[in-house]
């Protein structure tokens, strides 16, 4: 019989605004190798994310070894992506890419506490690839849809991650409905700017 392999973690769809509001991470088992989850304010756990946006800046912020930081912008805010020697493919993508470019990033959420005690959230990429505007737009719609689904399920009885989010965060989930609406509207307005055929 096949060995029981751990189920692959879903890549959550979350806008930068919500992602950067998250700061609380947790494990669901004491195992050292147990997955670490970022708790999303809309009440879901995220061990992996997929984001598609515009790479606007990149910089090697490493001291000795290369350590690349990329800023990836979606309609609601900015994701920070860090790739070093342990993410060689992603690091070389950041080295070679010329911003601005649409990129698709699959990666793991990471948090770190700054000197002033606030928590910054970033992405450690598993892969970075160049995509086109249509893929970016599709991601925006899909991410809006997933966000709305999470907000809708927030009050459900037995939604343990929503209860956890209530406890940990001070933000009403409706705020992310507004973020989703404005993200969708940004797509409509760019459509209008396109020249008439």
């Amino acid at each position, binding site marked *: 019989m096949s060995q029981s392999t751990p189920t692959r973690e879903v890549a959550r*769809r979350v806008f930068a605004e919500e992602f950067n509001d998250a700061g609380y991470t947790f494990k669901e088992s004491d195992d050292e190798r147990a997955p670490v989850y970022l708790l999303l304010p809309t009440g879901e756990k995220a061990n992996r994310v*997929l984001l598609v946006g515009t790479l606007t800046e990149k910089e090697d912020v490493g001291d000795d070894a290369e350590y690349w930081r990329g800023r990836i912008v979606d309609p609601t805010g900015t994701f920070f992506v860090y790739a070093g020697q342990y993410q060689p493919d992603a690091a070389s993508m950041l080295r070679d890419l010329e911003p601005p470019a649409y990129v698709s990033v699959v990666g793991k959420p990471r948090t770190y506490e700054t000197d002033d005690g606030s928590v910054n959230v970033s992405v450690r990429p598993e892969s970075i690839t160049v995509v086109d505007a*249509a893929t970016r737009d599709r991601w925006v*719609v*899909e*991410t809006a*849809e*997933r966000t709305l689904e999470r907000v809708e399920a927030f009050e459900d009885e037995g939604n343990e991650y929503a209860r956890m989010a209530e406890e940990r965060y001070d933000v009403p989930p409706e705020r992310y409905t507004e973020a989703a609406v404005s993200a969708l*509207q940004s*797509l409509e307005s760019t459509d209008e700017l396109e020249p008439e055929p």
Partner: protein
Amino acid sequence: MTDLRTHAREIVEQFSEHLDLEVDEVEQRLDNLVNEYRVPVEEARRSVVNNYLDEADLERDAIRGGDSDAAKVADIDEDEQWLDVTVKVVDLWEPRSDAISQVGLVGDESGTIKFVAFDTSELPELEEGAVYELGNVVTDEYQGNYSIKLNRTTSITKLDEEIEVGDDTDTVEGALVDIQSGSGLIKRCPEEGCTRVLQNGRCSEHGDVEGEFDMRVKGVIDDGASVQEVIFDREATEELSGITLDEAKSMAMDALDTTVVAEEIREDVLGHYYRVSGPTLGRYLLVDEFEELTEPADAESVLIKARSM
């Protein structure tokens, strides 16, 4: 003794409509007979079942096993259901464990499902291509995939009829978020009927062999709510990547490295959205058809939903 525990679970399930039994207690009774009094497992099970029949004041026919329902395999969506199915043996696989006497794929008009028969059940062997009525099989679930287990109480009746096995094609949509190792240009074992993928020129069954080149992509489609592992065969991989097998071979030759092919494919397709369809076998959806989703997604309907919230 996991084996006794399995028997105990089956007994608890058999009586589930009549008695509120504890698996532990049933297992203990079986254990007492088997390990203390050296009774063969089958005999112990019969004895324990008879005991409970008396306790519930029932005839043997009354317990589950006598009254399981006829089902179509595509309708199986619950664990531990006792059912009767009429199926054709589509495929027999090599059992990976001595505890399993037969494993493979059976199907009816509605689709196909994996079946497992255990050595301890001492059942007659099923023949590939034959149609059987299988009475009293029990469903099992692993990571969202269902199978049926044949057990000691299963009746096997060979039928003289033909079944047109339905195809259970699934379609999934989402972003291709990962391409796993063993993708790109690969070598397969040339031994008759083997086709295993070689690792460093070695087949796990036949050792060092002169492999035959092939292409495939093992990937993950993810829609943000669930993941599906998919396999593109050579034809689908050529279409997906725009690289033919011959081109892949010369790319590898130039680079003195076969992994350049997977690298190239990765750059082209990771993070893009696809709709793929094909039959599901175990963990994998085998891609028959696919298309890249390039049309603009429907923002308007999502916006309407958002505004109504």
